[in-house]
């Protein structure tokens, strides 16, 4: 049946042009596919919890395609950033997220847009899942005025409603996240804050101060450690006396999750969100994940780990491949469909890169703007006593 369809579509392609043929395949396939399936997911290790997230996850076709699209978009966007950086169109810091897409996609799938999220500097993925367009992200990386922070923030300082960046100081975002959770509790709005940090930041003292206060005051905060096994060039064994990051909250319950499986992340985050919203206080999740790139664009990423290790993760645990294979083997979508999505994403990323390369830089008059918020305009000293610049802060 499939071969016959393929023959017909090929013929149509040749006769009428590509699109007609493709449409034939899609409209025929829609009726054939499994609309929903249940998958076994890895059991999560638990700390101070009697029960954990379920061992099975339901996935609808639409959800699957959406998660695939999200992860693939982040992947392609990060690879495009890599390319632009090597062309010196992006400069400064650039910390790429490829390999970790399942974390961002899985978390966003289980929280509400009205919930809050804050992370550290490896933030492009979350900036996207929290609603900023690829265009605005890439243009911010290239420092143009069309960027989400008008070119003033760069890679580590992108913001959106209910998304607080993008933070450059390792670990500083954790007390901030606990504070956002305090605001949720104070305002009684049933919202929570997802506060992310890495295995490197897990040893910062301010995290333990935050854990203490969050537990004391039962703040609705999900602390999530994205353990990608390396803090810059230092492996977890060389940095932490205990690498059970999900237990490091001591009196705070914890779950260790397979961060390469978007469904596992989704179910665990749902579980954690329910925990917070029911007033039980904070919870810690450790997502075991991996980054393909080095720490940043100036790190080839192979002096402290082997190429074999990277390759092994790519072939055996890639989050995008895993989802795709699951859906294909359960007849939830077709290879062509995925290809179409890929093509579409490539096109979007290419257009965004075009914009990011051609958009002008912010004008010099903008240099000193927004030193203060909601402030009357003020005069700012330039590089010498006679140079007076203006700082305006529009609301």
């Amino acid at each position: 049946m499939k071969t016959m369809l393929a023959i017909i579509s090929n013929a149509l392609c040749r006769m009428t042009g590509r699109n007609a043929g493709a449409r034939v395949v899609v409209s025929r396939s829609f009726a054939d596919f499994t609309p929903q399936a249940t998958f076994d997911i890895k059991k999560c290790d638990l700390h101070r919890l009697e029960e954990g997230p379920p061992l099975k996850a339901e996935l609808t076709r639409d959800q699957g395609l959406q998660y695939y699209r999200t992860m693939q978009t982040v992947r392609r966007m990060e690879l495009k950033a890599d390319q632009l950086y090597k062309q010196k169109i992006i400069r400064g810091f650039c910390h790429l997220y490829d390999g970790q897409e399942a974390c961002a996609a899985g978390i966003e799938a289980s929280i509400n847009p009205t919930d809050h999220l804050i992370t550290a500097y490896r933030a492009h993925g979350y900036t996207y899942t929290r609603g900023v367009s690829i265009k605005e992200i890439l243009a911010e990386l290239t420092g143009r005025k069309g960027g989400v922070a008008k070119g003033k923030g760069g890679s580590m300082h992108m913001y959106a409603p209910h998304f607080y960046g993008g933070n450059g100081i390792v670990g500083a975002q954790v007390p901030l996240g606990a504070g956002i959770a305090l605001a949720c509790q104070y305002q009684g709005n049933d919202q929570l804050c997802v506060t992310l940090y890495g295995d490197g930041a897990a040893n910062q003292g301010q995290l333990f101060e935050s854990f203490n206060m969050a537990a004391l005051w039962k703040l609705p905060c999900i602390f999530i450690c994205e353990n990608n096994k390396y803090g810059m060039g230092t492996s977890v064994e060389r940095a932490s006396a205990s690498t059970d990051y999900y237990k490091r909250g001591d009196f705070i319950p914890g779950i260790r999750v397979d961060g390469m499986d978007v469904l596992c992340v989704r179910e665990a985050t749902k579980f954690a969100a329910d925990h917070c919203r029911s007033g039980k206080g904070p919870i810690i999740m450790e997502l075991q994940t991996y980054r393909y790139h080095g720490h940043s664009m100036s790190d080839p990423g192979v002096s402290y780990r082997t190429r074999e290790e990277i390759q092994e993760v790519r072939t055996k645990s890639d989050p995008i491949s895993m989802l795709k294979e699951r859906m294909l083997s359960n007849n939830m979508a077709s290879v062509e469909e995925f290809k179409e999505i890929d093509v579409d994403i490539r096109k979007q990323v290419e257009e965004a890169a075009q914009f990011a390369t051609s958009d002008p830089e912010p004008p010099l008059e903008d240099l000193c703007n927004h030193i203060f918020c909601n402030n009357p305009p003020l005069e700012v000293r330039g590089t010498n006593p006679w140079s007076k610049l203006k700082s305006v802060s529009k609301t």
Partner: protein
Amino acid sequence: MAASLRCFLRSGKKAVSALGQREFHKSAPVAAQVTVRDALNQAMDEELERDERVFLMGEEVAQYDGAYKVSRGLWKKYGDKRIIDTPISEMGFAGIAVGAAMAGLRPICEFMTFNFSMQAIDQVINSAAKTCYMSAGLQAVPIVFRGPNGASAGVAAQHSQCFAAWYAHCPGLKVVSPWNSEDAKGLLKSAIRDDNPVVFLENELLYGVPFEMSEEAQSKDFTIPIGKAKVERAGTHVTLVSHSRYVGYCLDAAAVLTKEGIECEVINLRTIRPMDVESIEASLMKTNHLVTVEGGWPQFGVGAEICARIMEGNDRLTASGRRLSSRRGC
């Protein structure tokens, strides 16, 4: 009979005092002697009442009534939600306060003294001060960091540092240093209403000092604009520029010097950043002589900045300045 009479008298007394209170607000005595502590307390009380997003957090601010009793009575009035005792975790609770500000609340974060703010200084500078700029205005941080700053009485070096110069160095922060009760109340109210991070430097030795507060200053809407200095005493021979407790020293010195025929103009900076250099320049056009007086160390201090600006500034100024400060280490 006696009991009911007593009851009547009691209720009557309540009625009379209530009446008295109403009249007190309607036509207050012309001026009153109010300590700096009470002025700060009033400012916070009024702002807590005015805007429910305002809350106070810090060590001992609630049940202890404040380490220096500045927040006395506030916890009893507003409760656990609005007046929050924190564990001894400056970096943690300063960060929590900044996060709460980012998410729409208006926290007052108290440091027991600003010496302890050094533990949290990353949150003040990198998370609070720089965020509005880096986000191109998308993310405001309406927070006040307040507490006693500078020298106290015999508390030793670790508890006596003045942080005016440290914080005033950073763009994105407003740094305020009140002297008397009117300053304290008006500037704290402005700081709380400001949508930007404000470092509010008090002085422990001033807390118990009473100052006259005008009728206007006692009203609930009395604010003093941040960024404007005040000429406390007009003069013609020399300009004394100071902030916080040392304004008092300057006025005392002026009283001594006037007997020798030297008239000092005393300027109370009130705000360190943004500094009101125009007021200093205007004064120097008259006097042509500048002395800066501060409690901090001289090197790279507030006085150094004032001297530099005067030296660089307006070409018509021929004044040169001298700095008075606490003893330089080395």
